């Protein structure tokens, strides 16, 4: 994206005019894209505007006008009413624990497949991939039933275990193919120095693959944070619920107050947005790492 339009043939007198015409086309296209961009973010903009309104302001002046006056009332009401700090902590604990454990399990699996080159590794990779693709619906009832029997229903640990299994299936598939091209000279050198398999994993493989592991961690974190189906089934108590589940529970209870709903949506969005801005690079890299084998 550095060199602007290389090699415009500038010999004829017509060339500059043609270039200018092409330029107009580009500006028109840019305008179209900006307009589409605005349409895409407009629902979010509406949420921001209406989260700061009072209920009477909303009823009389509608949602297109700016708040008059701006108020944090709805935000603070949602904050206390839904016990937002607790929901935030729940989401954070579940996402962080899931991502760390899922990366660890993926690393161990992929070490055996990609570097250990165990027999039947292709079958294993396909098995892990298909396990990740299977819809949760097909195993949710047995999981729900067993979780109830063993006391993991309605606990964060129960949800974490399920997510670690599903996400590490993807991580194994991805890492195994990355490790397939791992520089063997390094491994052989370490082995000649007498390093054990366990030591080679942590002293050679882990440091070198750290960038990929960070990408995996980030992906797992966002996926877990945004996941809806499994927490909806497994977490029924207010005290263990995640941020998205809390919002949908709130919507059921207080259907009337639109500004409160918007405040809740805005509060629930802020952590994801912050995360997005911090890890934007890693995330876009992650999405693409998944696409290049």
């Amino acid at each position: 994206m550095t060199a602007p339009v290389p090699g415009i043939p500038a010999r004829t007198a017509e060339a500059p005019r043609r270039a200018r015409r092409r330029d107009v086309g580009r500006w028109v296209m840019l305008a179209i894209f900006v307009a589409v961009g605005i349409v895409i973010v407009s629902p979010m903009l509406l949420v921001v505007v209406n989260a700061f309104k009072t209920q009477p302001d909303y009823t009389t002046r509608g949602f297109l006008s700016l708040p008059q006056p701006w108020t944090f009332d709805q935000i603070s009401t949602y904050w206390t009413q839904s016990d937002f700090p607790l929901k935030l902590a729940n989401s954070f604990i579940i996402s962080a624990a899931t991502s760390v454990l899922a990366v660890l399990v993926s690393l161990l699996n992929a070490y055996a497949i990609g570097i250990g080159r165990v027999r039947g590794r292709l079958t294993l990779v396909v098995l892990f991939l298909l396990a990740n693709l299977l819809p949760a619906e097909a195993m949710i009832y047995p999981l729900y039933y067993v979780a109830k029997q063993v006391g993991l229903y309605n606990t964060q640990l129960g949800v974490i275990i399920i997510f670690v299994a599903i996400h590490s299936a993807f991580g194994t598939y991805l890492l195994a193919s990355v490790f397939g091209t791992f520089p063997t000279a390094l491994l052989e050198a370490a082995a000649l120095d007498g390093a054990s398999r366990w030591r080679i994993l942590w002293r050679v493989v882990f440091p070198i693959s750290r960038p990929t592991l960070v990408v995996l961690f980030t992906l797992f974190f966002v996926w877990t944070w945004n996941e809806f189906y499994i927490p909806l089934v497994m977490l029924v108590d207010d005290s263990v619920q995640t941020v998205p589940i809390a919002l949908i529970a709130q919507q059921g209870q207080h259907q009337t107050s639109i500004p409160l709903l918007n405040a809740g949506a805005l509060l629930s969005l802020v952590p994801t947005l912050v995360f997005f801005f911090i890890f934007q690079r890693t995330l876009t890299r992650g999405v693409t790492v998944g696409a290049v084998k």
Partner: protein
Amino acid sequence: MSDTQLTSARPRARRARSPLQDRRGYWLYFIPGGVLLLAVILVPFAWGFVLSFSRWSGVGDIVWVGLDNYRQLLSDSVFLSSFANVLAMIVAVVVIPTLLGLVIAAVLFDYLGRRFAGNVVAVLRATFYLPQIIPIVIAGIVWGWVLQPDGSLNTILRAVGLGFLAQNWLGQPHLALGSLMTVLVWVQIGYPVVVFMAALSRVDPELYEAAQLDGAGAIRRFRAITIPQIRPETFVVVLTCTVAALKVFGPVYALTSGGPGNATYVPSYLSYQTFFQKLQVGYGSAMATVLALLVLLVSLAILWAQRRSEAKEER
């Protein structure tokens, strides 16, 4: 045949010398992952499959009914329409986003990217990607509010004098599915854009420059360079999006609950209702099994097509 025997015989001779060559020891590293895979995915999946031959409410005795549940599915109009809606989900989550994403990525990269600064393109790309990172239920709640009868969309239409276009977007059977699909396109579009743009930056720029010098216009370059060059990524996008389309749940839960009537039921949501609201565990398991088999079949088909296209390219 004899080739594989040779290569597998060689490491065996060296096994005693180095930990790298002893492959059996690596199975220890599968213990945590293997236990999880079995306990959380494979065994529950098999168990659910077995339950699909039963009638059970989740408590009390399990009654085995053979293929009854599957027979019932074939004449269950709600179930059949939920599977018909899967096609609509595929259009909204796979077909439209992949085609649009291809065009948007190419325009951003090859057309706008040549004239405007990198930041402009990066900001546009981030804007298109934004809906992807929003928790799907929150997106659903926000859209529900936008699309309700006195919601923002209708108000805006009335404000600009297009009041006759105002509709009950989610409340009318013939509109609800289209509204749901629009929301899904909005959610999904950023993913192919980001993947395809990354794929394009991998393509050698000299290809484009050479084509341009030869007088190929933007559309020509799109067809002759962009599309073939990013075929590997296209397969991955199609696979992940198709699986996502088959699993659509959150938007239906938050926006329509399958209604009005049966207009927006999808298999995932219908099986959830059958499990946890109607307490028909056996019947729900049959639905979930059919869905899972469909997911597996479609995934394997796409993986197979990908393999074949790669093999063709290497030749």
